């Protein structure tokens, strides 16, 4: 750390306006530099995240007391739909591949840019256009979609609300996801530095790579499914309308054929971030590199075959329930391999509890609760009574917020010093982490308990006997909000006023840490020669 104190951020690297072709903001929104596009994704997705957090907190506020507290049932429906749509399609799915993937995947493989830079900026534009189309439905005369983010028919077809625009926006965002996926796969295959073997790829690259395959193969199904909703609304061929022979269950199948893999689009890249952070702060080679890489692909493959577990109560055959339940247990195997390997990496490691590591460790804890509660839902027997309750809400948030969300926060604390070349206040970061962790568990564990007691989800009203736990949960949301506030302020402050850091404040071994912070506009002046694996902390060569 002593060398870091002497360093100043004299060169602003790719952030320097002199590196852009166009003046002012146009140098960003028309840039083809993967790092600038990564930052565009970074800020736009995090902006939507904060928007959806506010929606989520207002839902919790509504559930503080039984009956209407601050809003009507209709407003509650609008808000939980927009919360889901924004969080899923505008934040969690695009964030890691779009922001961290764009920023660091090309650098980690030793490339100077992604394979198709112009496609890359097009992909961000599609994302922004799609997001605005989806959100304009808020201003529609008939009100925004109030179907929930799953857009189940027949309601989404009959709904007088403006479902069409919301859905159209999501289709456009979907195409942006596909283009990013194509870019990531092609970059990994063809733009690696010549000396970089597949076995030397950082696990973050493996997980973005695995995710990208799911993105390009699953997202088109979502596109066609949502297009069918629009077609059904506009032309009314009745493809899902039982009166005209259609089957609403077919919609659910098509929707979950995409949306279950989408859960892995959200969580696989998060696992990649964790696989980067843990070896660095344990100063130890990752335990079972190949098992980690293969389990990414195994999760990506088996994750496409489990969609039916969302539909156990839809009246599907017992055989189908059995097969989907079994497959769901099978997915738990590669996930468990990852958890065991992370903990094995810690064993006899030289663990330093820096903020990224704290987030990574709490990720393992929260993901474990999320995963195990998932197994309870995967068992057809216990699924039936729990399916329509808050248990599912609690489980889902443990996996996606506790899992993907905390991994993203860890990634922010890990990589933000690289992006801006400045370090945040570590004490404040640790405080933010502790407050977030406490708030998170109070908020969502209360939901799991509420679900076991039988409180239905998707309702703004509940029986008086659920009041205590609901109050606890709502208070948890305030604590979580405070934690988020501290974290955001601390990170924003570091961007402008933080202490400058050198190339490699964490002593990591992957390629992005060989560059200056912020990375130069052209990444590598000459192609890097990779002489060691991404987690070789034993060898001491040119990387300091």
């Amino acid at each position: 750390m002593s060398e870091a104190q002497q360093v100043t951020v004299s060169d602003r690297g790719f952030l320097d306006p002199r590196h852009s072709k166009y003046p002012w903001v146009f140098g960003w929104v028309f840039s083809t530099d993967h790092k600038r596009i990564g930052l565009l994704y970074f800020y736009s997705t995090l902006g939507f995240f904060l928007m959806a957090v506010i929606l989520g907190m207002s839902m919790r506020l509504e559930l503080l007391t039984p009956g209407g507290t601050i809003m009507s049932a209709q407003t509650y429906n609008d808000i939980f739909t927009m919360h889901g749509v924004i969080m899923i399609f505008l934040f969690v799915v695009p964030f890691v591949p779009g922001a961290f993937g764009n920023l660091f995947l090309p650098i980690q493989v030793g490339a100077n840019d992604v394979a198709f830079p112009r496609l890359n900026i097009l992909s961000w534009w599609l994302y922004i256009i799609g997001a605005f189309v989806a959100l304009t439905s808020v201003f529609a005369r008939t009100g925004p979609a109030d179907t929930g983010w799953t857009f189940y028919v027949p309601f989404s077809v009959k709904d007088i609300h403006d479902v069409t625009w919301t859905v159209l926006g999501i289709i456009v965002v979907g195409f942006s996801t596909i283009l990013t996926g194509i870019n990531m796969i092609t970059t990994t295959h063809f733009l690696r530095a010549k000396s970089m073997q597949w076995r030397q790829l950082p696990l973050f690259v493996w997980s973005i790579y695995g995710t990208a395959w799911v993105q390009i193969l699953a997202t088109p199904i979502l596109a066609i499914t949502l297009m069918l909703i629009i077609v059904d609304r506009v032309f009314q061929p009745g493809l899902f309308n039982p009166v005209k022979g259609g089957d609403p269950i077919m919609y659910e199948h098509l929707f979950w054929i995409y949306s279950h893999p989408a859960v892995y689009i959200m969580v696989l890249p998060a696992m990649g971030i964790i696989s980067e952070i843990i070896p660095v702060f344990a100063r130890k080679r990752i335990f079972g590199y190949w098992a980690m890489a293969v389990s990414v692909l195994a999760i990506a493959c088996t994750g496409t075959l489990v969609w039916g577990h969302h539909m156990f109560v839809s009246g599907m055959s017992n055989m189908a329930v059995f097969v989907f339940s079994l497959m769901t247990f099978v997915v738990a195997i590669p996930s468990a391999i990852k958890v065991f390997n992370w903990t094995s990496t810690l064993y006899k490691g030289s663990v330093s509890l820096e903020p990224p590591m704290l987030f990574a460790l709490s990720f393992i804890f929260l993901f474990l609760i999320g995963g195990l509660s998932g197994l309870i839902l995967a068992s057809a027997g216990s699924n039936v009574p729990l399916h329509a309750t808050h248990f599912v809400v609690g489980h889902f948030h443990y996996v996606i917020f506790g899992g993907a969300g905390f991994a993203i926060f860890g990634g922010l604390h890990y990589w933000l010093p690289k992006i801006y070349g400045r370090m945040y206040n570590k004490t404040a970061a640790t405080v933010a982490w502790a407050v977030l962790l406490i708030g998170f568990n109070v908020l969502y564990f209360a939901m799991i308990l509420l679900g076991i007691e039988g409180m239905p989800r998707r309702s703004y009203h509940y029986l008086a006997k659920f009041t205590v736990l609901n109050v606890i949960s709502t208070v948890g949301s305030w604590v979580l909000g405070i934690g988020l506030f501290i974290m955001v302020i601390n990170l924003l402050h570091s961007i402008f006023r933080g202490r400058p850091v050198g190339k490699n404040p964490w002593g990591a071994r992957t390629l992005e840490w060989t560059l200056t912070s912020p990375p130069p506009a052209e990444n590598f002046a000459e192609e890097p020669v990779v002489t060691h694996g991404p987690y070789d902390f034993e060898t001491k060569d040119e990387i300091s």
Partner: protein
Amino acid sequence: MNHVAEHKDHTYARFGMWLFLFTEIMMFGGLFLLYTSYRIRFPQDFSKSTHVLSLWLGAANSAILLTGSLFTTLAIFALRRGSRRLSIALLAGTVVMGGLFLFNHYLEWSKEILQGIYPNAPHLDQMARGEILYFGLYYVTLGLHGLHVLTGSIILGVMAIFIVWHRITAEDYIKLENSGLFWHMVDIFWIFIFPLYYLLH
């Protein structure tokens, strides 16, 4: 900054195009899945509805698309052998084929619409449920496919203009090749759509 953008590596441009083709296959796959599921449920209604369509127009459209594919492939060969004019002419031929295809569609759809068979038509909604579904899927699938033919024709037309402007040359023809791949894919979709909607009685 965008030196990589100018970097011509045909291998990965082709690879990226194939990845895009996979996404298209998955997208149409959703419609084929729906078709399969509903056909299993209403086999009689589906085979009965098949007779309403004009087999001749469908067959003509198959021939038209395949000819377009042939022209596209020949256009690439012509360009690589240095005959720019021939290449442009062949691409124009493909665009004409695309236009003919859409014209046939127009003929066929107007015939069916005049018979009162279109989504949400009072006449259609009184038919059997399997028939309503069949024609619903028919309009959606062929409509989406028709949009792809239109897109493919426009793209190949633009490629012809690029050849005129020397943006595509005998040495650097990956854009044309990828556009050709798109057309072939649209063609192959038709190879599946045609038997499913016109032939399977």
